[in-house]
Every structure is written in structure tokens, then in C-alpha cells.
């Protein structure tokens, strides 16, 4: 454990503008060029714990960007996520992580995300809610090709995209739009999860 903490700290110190060295442990199984695990930023989950995206490595990720005070599109996106989760066969559930990322980190505190997860019956281990600062959120959206803009003090306009990532964090499928069929999304998740068996 100490070793891990030490290497985490050193890798944090090295990550800077003049980084030439790399964490040696990662070299054993390098993160691929297109992996979202190249993003070093810290996030906080609904339990108030700090996590790096990298900690999700090894599972199929289903990701969506939302904000909890949203009344228009998000309830449908959230419902889509729940339906997708329901359709994943039991034997694969352990290999899949469903991730909801807030585009409104000011309002969406960990407490708020926790409440939201309970209200929406997304309370198992398979559900992760994440928030970070504005800059990291913008960068993450850039990676997902999700566009968003604050259009009033309480509302955002945003793309309705659900993304599936394979165990290495590479984008494998994107479902775009509201009220579209999520059959393809589910079959892609199963396809990626099968590879992990």
C-alpha cells in the first residue's frame, strides 16, 4: 500500500510541464494512445471519494454527461442509462461500470449526486457519479465530443450522447440523441464485456 501511495505521489510530481520520466509500473501494460486513461485529472464520486479515471480501467464503461437540476433532456438520458443497465445480462454486470459525469460541478456536489443517485434508483456498485472542476469537465467533454453551454444560471444546453468504452478506455460506440433505440448500445456493451471473460 505504501508503495502504491509513494508511486502515486511521485507520478503526480513528475506530471508537469517538463515530464520526461514515466511511471514504471504502468509501462508493464501501457495505456494505449486513444485511451481516456491518458487523462490524469482527479474526480470526486458520489461518496465524496477522490478517484482518477484510471481506477476504472479493466471494466467496460458506459458514460453520459448530465446535470442534476436538469428538467428537459437529462431525465430521459438517465432513464436510458437505467434501461441499458437493466438489459445487461447478469453474468456481465460485474464487468460493466455506468458513469454519470456532471457538467455543473458548482451545483452538483457529492452530496447532491448522492441524493440524485438515490432518487433515481442508481445505487449499486455499478453506478458511479463523478464531478470535477470546470476545466477538467470541459476537457472530458472534449474527449467525449460532448458539447455544452451554460445558457442561464440554472440551465445548460448539452449534447445527448451515451458513450461506451472498452476495458482499455478506448471509445467503442456512441449513441446520439434522445429517444433513439439503445439496442446497439447494449449489444456493444455485451460484446466488450464478453472479451473480459
Amino acid at each position, binding site marked *: 500500500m505504501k508503495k502504491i501511495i509513494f508511486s502515486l505521489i511521485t507520478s503526480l510530481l513528475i506530471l508537469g*510541464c517538463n515530464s520526461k520520466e514515466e511511471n514504471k509500473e504502468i509501462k508493464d501494460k501501457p495505456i494505449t494512445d486513444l485511451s481516456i486513461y491518458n487523462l490524469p485529472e482527479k474526480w470526486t464520486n458520489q461518496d465524496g471519494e477522490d478517484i482518477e479515471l484510471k481506477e476504472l480501467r479493466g471494466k467496460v464503461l458506459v458514460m453520459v454527461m448530465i446535470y442534476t437540476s436538469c428538467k428537459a433532456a437529462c431525465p430521459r438520458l438517465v432513464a436510458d442509462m437505467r434501461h441499458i443497465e437493466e438489459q445487461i445480462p447478469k453474468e456481465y454486470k460485474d464487468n460493466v461500470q455506468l458513469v454519470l459525469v456532471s457538467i455543473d460541478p458548482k451545483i452538483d456536489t457529492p452530496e447532491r449526486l448522492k441524493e440524485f443517485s438515490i432518487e433515481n434508483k442508481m445505487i449499486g456498485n455499478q453506478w458511479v457519479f463523478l464531478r470535477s472542476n470546470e476545466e477538467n469537465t470541459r476537457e472530458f467533454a472534449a474527449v467525449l465530443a460532448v*458539447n455544452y453551454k451554460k445558457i*442561464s444560471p440554472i440551465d445548460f*444546453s448539452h*449534447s445527448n450522447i451515451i458513450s461506451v468504452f472498452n476495458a482499455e478506455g478506448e471509445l467503442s460506440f456512441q449513441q446520439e440523441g434522445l429517444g433513439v433505440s439503445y439496442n446497439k448500445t447494449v449489444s456493444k456493451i455485451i460484446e466488450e464485456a464478453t472479451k473480459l471473460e
Partner: protein
Amino acid sequence: MEAQFIKRFHYCLILLFWVSISFSQLPKNMVTIGEGNYIPLYGTSDKKPVTIKSFYLDIYPVTNQEYLIFLKTNSDYRKSTIKRLFANTTYLSEWKSDLNFGELNPSAPVTNISWFAAKKYCDCQGKRLASLDEWEYVAMADEKRKDARSREEFNKYILSWYEKNKTYNISVGKTFKNYWGVYDMHGLVWEWTFDFNSIFLSGESRKDKDTDKDLFCGSGSVNATDLMNYAAFMRYAFRGSIKANYTTKNLGFRCAKNISN
């Protein structure tokens, strides 16, 4: 007696001058953009003006030479090493090798640069990319006015540039100096902004919220407050069409910086 007074007065002036310089500490090659309000072409649901707080902005876009210096210490961002997540295959495509920009003009804006690379460059200078609203705020100024958007000649100038070829290889500082003291907002290259991905494109595949219709169909009720400003419209449409790892020949960047108390 009088001579002595004048002498003292001069000393005082010099002292004041020195004090004011040492307190203002304007970052090198940046100018202060003053606070103000304006109604962007697109983006506010209620047509209300957005407020831009005072900030620093680079006088010129970042050049090939400057980018080369950055690459010397940031080996992860070289042509051969950058991760595909952060830049597509045309990243620095006209550079001969990792640390050689080949035939390109050293003083011309660096282009074929991704959003991630531009952001990293600014981070490393202790700066940031300007927000879209900040960038447009500065870009609406001509030589004399803060807001020249309604001037026909100004728009004509911008649009005629959009039709010119290869302006990306011209040295920075060759276009006009605007009201704020900033060069090349129009005339050489288009520029990345921090929240470029706050624009919505309409189309079958991206069924976004209704704001996009206003941008592309010009229904005018919400956002297109200034349809005359076709030039800005082109920029917004362009930003709406790119992704963060995209790189093109006519797209460069410059950095901004917060004014700390």
C-alpha cells in the same frame, strides 16, 4: 529656487513612473482587455449581454518558433509522440520532424495544432486559452472602436480574408492593431478557444436541444442577435464542426491570463 523645485518635481515624476511600472506588472507580450458587456451572436437564451471581466491576452498568436521552444521541454507533445487522443494524424503535418518546422515561417502562427496541445502550451506558460465569449469580445474591435461589428468595412475586411489562401504562413503582427492593442484577431488564422465545444450543430445525428436551430436556421428569436455579422457566424459554425483533437492548417491559438487581485 524655481530650478530646484522643477528638479524635485522631476524626481517625483520618475519615482511615480517607476512605482506604477513595478505595480502593474503586465505580463510580457500581453495587453489588458478592459471589462465590458456585449451581446454575442449566439449563446445567451435571454438575449442579455454577457459580462467580460478584465483579463490579459497575448498580443499575437503563438508562433512556430515559440511552439518549437515549448516542444523542446515537452517531449510528449512532439509530432511523433503525441497521443492520438490529444491530436489527430495531421498534427504539425508541415513540420519536417519533431523539432524542425521545415519551410514554415518561424514568425508565422503555429497551426495544425489540436485543442489539447494549445491548452497544454498555455498551461505551461501559466496562462490559459481565452473563453469563446472573451475571444469574440476582443475580436469585435477594429482600430478605434471596441465594437465595430456593425461597420460594413470591418465585416468586409474579415470576409475577404476568409477567401484568401495561405494566410497562415504570414508573420504575426502584420494585420491591424485593434482598440485593445491586440494584433491578428482577423487576417491570419482562426483560433482555438477554451470552450469551443459549447456550440451546437444541427443534423440528423446530433439531436441536441433547440438552440442549434436558431444558429443554423436563423429563426432569430433567441440567439442570432446580429445576423448582419455573417463573419462571426462563420466562426461559430466552424467551431461547431471541430473536435478537440482536430488540427487544420488555418487554426492556431493564443493564450489569455487571469488578472490576479
